[in-house]
């Protein structure tokens, strides 16, 4: 094997790595490995000076391979690839050793953690020597975009793209636009009308020449790859899909039967939103049994209809609002649904203005008022004499019917945390602040567009902090509450961000896709056709007269299933070759 000049850079990540792994020892161990020309550690390898150090060594010390031992490659591989590319090396001459997420953050300080780091670096050094120069491919970028979901996020994204002059296909499963926001009256904390926010957007979408709306329609499949997707959409089963896409849809791809369209798109924005938690799952609240226990959305309906009253038709003298219904509990959803607290305060105001004499009890676990203007809203609410009562996590308040003697219809028993008193709250109307849940169909959608979900069913972004709208599938973006509970401003911001990302790519006209894909050595292929059936992207075609199989690299997503299966070893996974992985195995076990 030809002798390389490998640079090994061990990142201390402040103390994140250094306080557990003896970075100096790792450097000492790396120095003596074959082919290693430079080995050093530094506080923050990803910092500008850190990257400059690498670049300088490449140019001055003539390094031809680089190993960075630091955080997960999922975090900074792109960063360091850029670094060495700018320094004149092929970006694929990089290998990272994950000594933070998979070492210093999970092991106690000591010899074992350090040994593990050394082994990982050894593997990386072994591997990087076998790396080949790869050129990432550029493919054409189709400027059409498919937007799934006609809620505030979907509408915003669609308008953003269409206003920029590009075709948008907006697919909404329901028979009307507006999503969950359409069910809301006022919005917190500024109490401006949700309808005002929606109406003009919906109108603009409806009349926009560049937006084609498909109502009562759902995605059936998504094929292709970034810049070149084909989406099959069809009328949702049973649902009439009133006013579904008109003639021009048919032009955008052969329909394949009435109520079915094939859409050519370059990008996809998934904004399918959320569904509310089913309050009857928490028996303590008696939702469904006690007529005056209602959900937040049922209350919104009351407010929109302008009559806030009990089932008996009377005005409530006492009203209670119960927070975190389905949220922040071990039984149901551990996460916070984020919007309920402020919505609850909004209800307090709406109640006060509608029924001035009404006494309002706000039964909460913690008051989350982190948003802009929210803390102030919280203060104002307490000034209108809302009684705030704190209940303990997983210690649900119990709602029961009051005795005829009482001056109220319901009684809520709470172990009140601030006074440490077991108390009973009088109520005529109880509003349950139901939390947000991933939609039942989120799983299907995720599978169709090839993105993953967390344990709660929310879609996972490609990086929670640095890349919050992109997903692990190139060209597929997420916006709004399908990624996690969000308020309107955040959803809108995300929608615009996603649209922005897409516009940037459209502006470039073409898009770089990863150079990692499988290729078949036709000299070695025997045409046994074992691989043909294995490719989920039908990226392997069989040449009948040559009796050889061939990979259509643009379609290949580099999973490597065929590579492992090829009994003649004729298929190579670029950047994940057998030799490279053997070298890693030998490295970690050296």
């Amino acid at each position: 094997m030809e002798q390389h000049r490998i640079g090994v850079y061990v990142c201390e990540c402040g103390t994140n790595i250094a306080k557990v792994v003896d970075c100096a020892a790792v450097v000492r161990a790396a120095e003596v490995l074959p082919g290693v020309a430079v080995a050093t550690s530094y506080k923050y390898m990803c910092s500008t000076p850190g990257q400059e150090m690498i670049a300088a060594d490449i140019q001055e010390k003539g390094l031809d391979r680089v190993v960075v031992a630091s955080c997960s490659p999922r975090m900074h591989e792109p960063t360091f690839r850029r670094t060495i590319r700018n320094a004149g090396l092929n970006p694929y001459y990089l290998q990272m050793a994950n000594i933070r997420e998979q070492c210093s953050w999970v092991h106690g300080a000591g010899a074992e953690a350090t040994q593990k780091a050394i082994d990982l670096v050894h593997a990386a050094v072994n591997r990087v020597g076998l790396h080949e120069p790869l050129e990432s491919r550029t493919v054409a970028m189709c400027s059409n975009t498919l937007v799934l979901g006609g809620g505030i996020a979907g509408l915003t994204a669609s308008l953003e793209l269409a206003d920029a002059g590009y075709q948008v296909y907006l697919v909404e499963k329901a028979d009307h636009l507006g999503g969950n926001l359409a069910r809301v009256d006022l919005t917190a904390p500024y109490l401006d009308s949700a309808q005002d926010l929606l109406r003009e957007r919906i109108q603009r979408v409806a009349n926009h020449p560049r937006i084609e709306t498909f109502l009562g329609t759902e995605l059936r499949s998504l094929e292709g790859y970034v810049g070149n997707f084909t989406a099959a959409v069809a009328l949702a089963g049973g649902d009439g899909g009133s006013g579904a896409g008109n003639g021009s849809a048919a032009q955008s791809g052969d329909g394949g039967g009435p109520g079915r369209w094939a859409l050519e798109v370059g990008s996809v924005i998934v904004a399918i939103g959320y569904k509310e938690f089913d309050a009857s799952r928490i028996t303590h609240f008696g939702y469904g049994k006690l007529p005056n226990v209602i959900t937040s959305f049922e209350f919104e309906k009351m407010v929109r209809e302008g009559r806030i009253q009990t089932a008996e038709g009377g005005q409530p003298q006492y009203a209670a609002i119960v927070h975190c219904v389905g949220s922040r509990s071990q039984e149901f959803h551990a996460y916070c649904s984020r919007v309920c607290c402020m919505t609850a305060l909004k209800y307090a105001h709406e109640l006060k203005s509608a029924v001035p004499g009404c006494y309002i009890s706000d039964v909460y676990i913690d008051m989350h008022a982190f948003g802009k203007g929210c803390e102030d809203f919280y203060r104002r609410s307490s000034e209108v004499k809302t009684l705030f009562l704190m209940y303990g996590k997983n210690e649900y308040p119990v709602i029961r019917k009051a005795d005829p003697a009482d001056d109220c219809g319901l009684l809520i028993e709470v172990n009140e945390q601030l006074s440490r008193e077991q108390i009973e709250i009088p109520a005529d109307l109880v509003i349950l602040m139901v939390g947000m849940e991933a939609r039942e169909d989120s799983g299907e959608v995720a599978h169709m567009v090839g993105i993953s979900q967390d344990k709660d069913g929310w879609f996972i972004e490609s990086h929670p902090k640095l890349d919050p709208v992109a997903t692990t599938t190139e060209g597929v973006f997420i916006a709004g509450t399908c990624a996690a509970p969000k308020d309107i401003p955040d959803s809108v911001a995300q929608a615009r961000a996603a649209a922005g990302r897409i516009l940037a790519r459209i502006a470039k006209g073409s898009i770089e896709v990863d150079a990692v894909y499988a290729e078949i050595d036709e000299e070695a292929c025997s045409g046994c056709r074992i691989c043909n059936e294995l490719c989920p992207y039908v990226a392997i075609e069989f040449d009948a007269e040559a009796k050889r199989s061939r990979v259509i690299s643009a379609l290949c997503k580099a999973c490597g299933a065929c590579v492992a299966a090829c009994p003649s070893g004729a298929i190579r996974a670029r950047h994940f070759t057998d030799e490279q992985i053997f070298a890693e195995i030998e490295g970690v076990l050296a």
Partner: protein
Amino acid sequence: MNAEVATAVETPVVGGDGRGAPAAEKQAALRVSGSSATFQPRIVGFLCNWCSYAGADLAGTSRTPYAATVRVIRVMCSARIDPTFVLKALAEGADGVLICGCHPGDCHYSEGNYKTMRRYPLLKRMLADFGIEEERVRLEWVSASEGQHFADVVDDMTRRIRALGPSKVKIALATDRAER
């Protein structure tokens, strides 16, 4: 050196070099791992990039501690894991091999993990024929959100392999070399 060894082991046949072997095996055992009290297994983990590797990263970001026994090798999909890799790892002296992929039905490549699901049982049968203990090779589905699960798997596997002691593959090959 072959000659000496050959004569050294030259004894009546039945159980003959059975007497020579344990010594060599003990030596090898020492080479591999030191005394079994402080035996720290070396497990090679093959993790798919999208679910399991992300899951292992999550264990990190949420600071979930687990035994420092696993050395992770990242592949794009568990379907890329050629059984050859597993044999290679064992031949190179791994005390265990952990294969992780997305949960069935949740594969980033929609079906990759099913290929893994098909190969694994056959591989286990083959390993059993080679006298390799059940616990040494393990397939687990770990999603991107299951950091805790990953940590638990590693700890559990470490515990079981500790109980077994070091893998005998490398020792066996070492003693064979000694025989020639």
